[in-house]
């Protein structure tokens, strides 16, 4: 991997925050005060820092998957759905074996999440390799299917018996057996040991892409499928494999949210990380070495936006709008940089 130019990242964040400030002014909110609340909320206390760290976990896991798929020029928009099926598979397994010992059950639960995400994404990879179906569209459709599957499971087969008994019927599963809860890194905060996975997996993905034949083949397929085929690479299986790996990481993100943070499956448990992880990956210039700092930075923005909503009554949807602007700035700056280099 060549040296990474972070200029587009800086431009994108700065530009989006500037436009966000204009939007805040238009809404009658003092942007300096709003951004001050965001900064203090995300980084100004142990609780805030822990929340930022814990928020970055799914962003980085999803982002690693986005990076792998993008090597083969596959754009996996489906991480949101892959997270949901991962979380649901892990939940179902943990609830089915409530008395199994933790050291046995936890790896199985994580593996179930990884496998479910891998299958969900692998299906989109298969559709692309076999039938030429655009993966952006198929993964978007599969997101909707996963959403309805989740609603079905959480209001029926997986519905918490306590919700059924009390008649409130809030769509959520029963609490997972405590032996699969990931321990907290800092007591009485949301930061759990899933955070320690990030450097390990980022290093593994870096090694995979830079040092292995598979990494080379994925890049070859991404640069020119025809040339890769001519060189004897089986393009179809590589496309499926890229999606499977990408989905496995998203599935892991889902099941880690459940075992580490929520301790049950519930609606909204992905926290939109399936999309936010794409933004984090692009902010890190699709380089595993930069993904963790980018993920932390972006997590701070999201945690800060949440605090802003609570203290200034600015809807947290503002964070979504900012994400969209960041993406637009990023691709613009990237295209500009590409042309400047070519000139």
């Amino acid at each position: 991997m060549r040296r990474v130019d972070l200029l587009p990242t800086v431009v994108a964040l700065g530009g989006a925050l500037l436009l966000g400030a204009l939007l805040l002014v238009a809404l009658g909110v003092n942007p300096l005060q709003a951004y001050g609340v965001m900064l203090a909320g995300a980084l100004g206390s142990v609780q805030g820092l822990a929340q930022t760290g814990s928020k970055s976990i799914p962003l980085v896991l999803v982002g690693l998957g986005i990076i792998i798929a993008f090597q083969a020029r596959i754009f996996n928009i489906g991480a949101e759905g892959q997270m949901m099926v991962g979380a649901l598979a892990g939940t179902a397994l943990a609830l089915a074996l409530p008395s199994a010992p933790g050291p046995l059950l936890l790896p199985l639960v994580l593996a179930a999440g990884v496998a479910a995400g891998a299958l969900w994404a692998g299906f989109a990879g298969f559709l692309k390799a076999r039938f030429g179906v655009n993966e952006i569209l198929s993964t978007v459709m599969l997101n909707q299917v996963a959403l309805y599957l989740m609603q079905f499971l959480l209001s029926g087969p997986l519905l918490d018996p306590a919700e059924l008994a009390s008649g409130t019927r809030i769509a959520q599963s029963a609490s997972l057996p405590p032996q699969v809860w990931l321990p907290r890194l800092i007591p009485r905060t949301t930061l759990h040991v899933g955070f320690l996975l990030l450097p390990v997996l980022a290093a593994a993905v870096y090694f995979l892409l830079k040092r292995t034949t598979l990494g080379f083949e994925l890049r070859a397929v991404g640069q020119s499928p025809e040339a890769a085929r001519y060189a004897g690479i089986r393009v179809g299986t590589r496309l499926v494999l890229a999606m499977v790996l990408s989905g496995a990481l998203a599935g892991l993100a889902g099941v880690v949210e459940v075992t580490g943070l929520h301790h049950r499956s519930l609606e909204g448990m992905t926290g939109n990380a399936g999309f936010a992880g794409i933004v984090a990956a692009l902010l890190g210039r699709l380089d595993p070495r930069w993904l963790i700092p980018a993920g932390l930075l972006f997590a701070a923005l999201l945690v800060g936006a949440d605090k802003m909503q609570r203290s200034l009554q600015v809807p947290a949807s503002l964070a979504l709008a900012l994400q969209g602007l960041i993406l637009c700035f990023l691709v613009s700056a990237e295209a500009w940089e590409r042309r400047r280099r070519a000139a």
Partner: protein
Amino acid sequence: MPLESFLFSTLRLATPYLYAALGETLGQRAGVLNLGLEGTMLVGALAAFLTVARTGSPGLGVLAALAAGLAMASILILVSVVLKGEQGISGIGLYLFGLGLSGVLYRMTAGGVRTVEGFPALSIPLVGPILSGHHLLTYLAFLLVPLMAWLLNRTRFGLEVKAVGQNPQAADAMGISVLRVRALAVALGGMLGGLAGASLSIANLDLFQEDMIGGKGFIAVALVYFGGWNPYGVLGGVLLFASVNALQLWIQVARLPIPSDLALMLPYLLTIAVMALAPRRKTEPAALGRAFDR
């Protein structure tokens, strides 16, 4: 369910898809993929809703939706046509921006307003209960199909659109401004996207909710592929899709022993199946998704 009401709701449900997918067809024929259609529809729906809530005039609501669609399209034109940023990513950016913006604006402006009085149902004599009783936007949506076909196949602008989508280098050599044609096509497509949103918020449903488009914009993009980038093909895809939607509504209403969440999956599964099994199209614009550099 009586066949009559099934066909009636099929036509009604087809309305937003028609505007969105026909607009997307125009942009894609010029070589620009607008994945942000969903976000455009949301902003258009909100603009129309707020305008009608303030003024009571559905006509002004339509104008507001067109303007909102144009504004959203301008972002895509700037990012992906002028600055040549990756279209898939900028589209997702536009979607998230529209989703967030419409959420913020709705919460901060609409206050307690839940529903509006939008386009009334028109009763048309002699055409029967399936074709009569729709609102104006439904009739216009179906008229738009031949109009779009005429625009693409019978006008100079349509020829230019197809030329810059097929071979922008050659079009450029012939003196066509690729940027201008692409910008115009995306702008018109975005305005239709805004109108698609309005057809929900001030006609089909007469209300606004956050995230109310619920994936219809993405489906409309898929329907353009399904329809082979041809307005009549798109019409066929929209009707098939709307009929599955109508069927799914009927499953819920008739209380068949199928969980409603599973019935709601049907349209999406159908879209996937159709994309996989439809014969490979030769009509895909050769330069679709590619930025133009001399």
